């Protein structure tokens, strides 16, 4: 979904805003790029099982995407995720 569509349709207002842990994960993805789930956990000083739920929520909201790789799966920030992060007060 493009930034313009998100702005015009206001999709985010219908969803519950991301929690702090979810925002931390989005920050980690934006600042250091796509990562394996275990790397993402490390970036936020967490264990993989601790980020499993927030990561699933982010995926359901379309803010991150899991891409299959030979050696597992890579978590990538989507355009919608970038947009959400830019609008979050922690970024301003």
């Amino acid at each position: 979904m493009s930034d313009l569509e998100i702005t015009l349709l206001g999709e985010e207002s219908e969803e519950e805003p991301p929690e702090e842990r979810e925002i931390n994960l989005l920050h980690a993805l934006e600042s250091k790029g796509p990562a394996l789930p275990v790397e993402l956990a490390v970036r936020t000083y967490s264990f993989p099982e601790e980020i499993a739920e927030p990561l699933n929520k982010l995926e359901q909201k379309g803010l991150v995407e899991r891409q299959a790789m030979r050696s597992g799966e890579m978590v990538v920030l989507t355009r919608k995720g970038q947009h959400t992060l830019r609008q979050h007060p922690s970024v301003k």
Partner: protein
Amino acid sequence: MASIVEVFIQWAIDVRLDLYLVTGLMALIWAASEVIVSHPDRPVQALRTGGARLLILINVAFAWLVYAAALALVPNSQSIWMALGTGLSWQAMLRGGINIQPLPASSVAGASNEELGVPLNELYARLQAFCVGQIQRALVGRRVELMERVIAELDIAELARTARLVTTALSEEPGQAEQYIERIQTNEGRTPEEKEILLISLILDNRGGDILRQRVREKK
């Protein structure tokens, strides 16, 4: 009878291939700098990926296309300045609206140009996104390969020591990193391999890849 080489040389002179090379070189430098800037932690590794090479190639090809289009639009404009300018600003020129038309407008009755045309800038954006994805996949894949090598050579104590060294020197939050290393080491419900993976990830995340490679070399 003129040899193939002579024909090629004559053709190169006719089309001023030297100017195309200038445009291509500018596009190459531009693309390489984009890769470097977007991967400040691993610029050399990023440049060595197939995705980066493809991105550079695509940049050069698009720059040539824009240069050729510019020459067609502005007759007698062939010059070193035109070649340099196109090499540096072809992306802006692309956004300006040079479009590929895959089908002639007359072939589909009633269809507008917008419906038929594939905007060149959109095509470039898609190819660029594909290349960036390939670079990222390659970098993650290389980290996994390094993890496998390190797990085979180093134990938890050594990895924890390296993680402390790296995070103390380079982490923005050394206190938090120290607590995290402690949590990893003392976590009873985790296998040694899981602990190693977490510690290696922490070292790599704090730009300690070279130190790990050095440690592995020393062990061998």
